[in-house]
């Protein structure tokens, strides 16, 4: 019995961990091997992967089903434009500053909407996002309802030449995706993260075992708010133009993200990553078909919900008992045969 140990590693997770470094190096080197259009697409994929991972932490783990995360995407975009153009702050300083501001703003919002439960909470988050949208439409310095463009001097100031700028945009997007996924994995592995997983499964038991549920959810909401704001900055740095309707679009920043997480597998780390890849594969192959593309998206969602209600990854995991990111704590050394 003295040989019992607790570990998180599985054979698959070790293999993936070893593969991770070369994959990451290849991705960092993308500006040298990928075309301009590909680089832009990969940047978009990285940012959507971040949004999906964050929404999954919120809805899949903390049980906070928000349909208003566009509030923070838009906030990020506007904060980045305001900080750089109006306040004259260096773009690289503006990014962390905006993320911090997003978290600070998320705190009172959380206090307010946490009074709502279930469907009412979801509606409340949407209303919040609308409040944000209408507020920014009032700011004439940022173009009011018609929006504004990022001034060329700021864009030029970020890197010399077009190629360098595009490489920089990709590195920032990749960096944020790695930061977000890494932070979520580390968080879920921590004691606090295990507590959050427990809340996901059973709130009554979690409360009775000493977990402060409100506090756990509050921390998650605020951190997700801050990081979503950061992703928002990069989305609009890539677009170079912002308007209230684009910044606070429930379709682009929440509906598609929910689709990604649900088909990939809610409540798993791998789900949003796989979901993002499936979503972009569908979009890139079918976007020319116009309306048919949206019908296909709907069909995919329906088929997956009927055949694999826990998403693609949930289905694979339940079937083969696998895990790429090592989260589970397993006891090894049990005498199975004896």
């Amino acid at each position, binding site marked *: *019995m003295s040989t*019992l140990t*607790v570990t998180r590693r599985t054979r698959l997770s070790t293999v993936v961990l070893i593969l991770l470094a070369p994959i990451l190096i290849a991705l960092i080197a993308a500006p040298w091997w990928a075309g301009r259009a590909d680089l832009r697409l990969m940047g978009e994929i990285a940012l959507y992967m971040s949004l999906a991972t964050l929404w999954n932490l919120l809805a899949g783990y903390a049980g906070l089903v928000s349909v208003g995360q566009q509030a923070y995407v838009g906030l990020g975009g506007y904060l980045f434009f305001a900080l750089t153009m109006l306040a004259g702050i260096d773009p690289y300083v503006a990014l962390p500053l905006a993320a911090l501001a997003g978290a600070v703003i998320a705190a009172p919002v959380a206090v307010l909407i946490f009074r709502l439960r279930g469907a009412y909470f979801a509606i409340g988050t949407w209303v919040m996002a609308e409040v944000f949208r209408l507020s920014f439409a009032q700011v004439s310095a940022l173009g009011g309802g018609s929006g504004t463009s990022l001034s060329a001097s700021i864009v030029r100031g970020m890197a010399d030449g077009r190629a360098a700028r595009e490489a920089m945009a990709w590195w920032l997007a990749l960096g944020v995706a790695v930061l977000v996924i890494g932070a979520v994995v580390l968080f879920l592995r921590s*004691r606090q993260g*295990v*507590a959050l*997983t*427990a809340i*996901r*499964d*059973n709130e*009554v*038991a*979690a*409360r*009775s*075992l*000493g*977990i*402060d*549920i409100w506090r756990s959810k509050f921390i998650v909401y605020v951190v997700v708010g801050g990081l979503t704001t950061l992703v928002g900055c990069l989305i609009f740095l890539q677009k170079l133009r912002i308007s209230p309707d684009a910044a606070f679009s429930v379709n682009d920043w929440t509906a598609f993200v929910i689709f990604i997480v649900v088909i990939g597998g809610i*409540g798993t780390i791998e789900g949003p990553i796989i979901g993002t890849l499936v979503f972009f594969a569908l979009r890139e192959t079918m976007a020319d078909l116009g309306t048919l593309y949206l019908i296909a998206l709907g069909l995919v969602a329906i088929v997956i919900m009927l055949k694999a209600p826990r998403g693609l990854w949930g289905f694979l995991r339940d079937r083969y008992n696998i895990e790429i990111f090592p989260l*589970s*704590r*397993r*006891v090894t050394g*049990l005498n*199975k045969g004896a």
Partner: protein
Amino acid sequence: MSAILELNGVSKAFGAVVVADDQSWTLDKGEAMGVIGPNGAGKTTMFNLVTGNLAADAGVIRLNGETISKWPAARRCRAGIARSFQVPQPFAHMTVFENAYVAATQGAGLSSVQADKLCLDVLERTGLLEKSNVKAGGLTLLERKRLELSRALCAKPSVLLLDEIAGGLTEHECHALIQTIKDVRETGVSIVWIEHVVHALLAVVDRLIVIDFGKKIAEGAPEAIMQSDAVREIYLGLDADA
């Protein structure tokens, strides 16, 4: 001996239905107390009031002399009150080990390394060690009840509230359970145990209270209580005067 847990005039009603009626009792340090009463008498409700899963309408609950009546459930657990649920409430998508780990890190506030050690130790004692890597949702009812006990123990309680954990066990399993609870008691944990399997209860507890219609109707040494008219009336339907 000094009191570790004390209820004074605790009441709770849902509309016109009184589920706890002016309950007062104390639990001494290191003591094991049994609770009996018919189904629906308010025994589990009493636990819910002590753990904070329900808020009392009136009365005071004290732990080690400190008033905890207004504390949320999580804080009461961290202060040393742990319970098992009559209807098991597992974290279904987490493994047995992780279920215990949550209690050890949150309820007992242990570091990860300390928690690993405690969980393995407790799971061995409750006979669930072999099931460590099984998802709790895949356990049988009896295993789920053992998981309830394991989790409560991993929270390192000073007061352990057990809610019907012996039902459905074979003679041999019941004997093992009694031994486990006696061992827990040896470590200085005070116990309140709701149980319909009276012989298991009598093997462990020093004192019994009887609850009916939310009221404490009798209290005393187990043998005397089991012989009392009040209990005979409740369980056997005898007229107290007969």
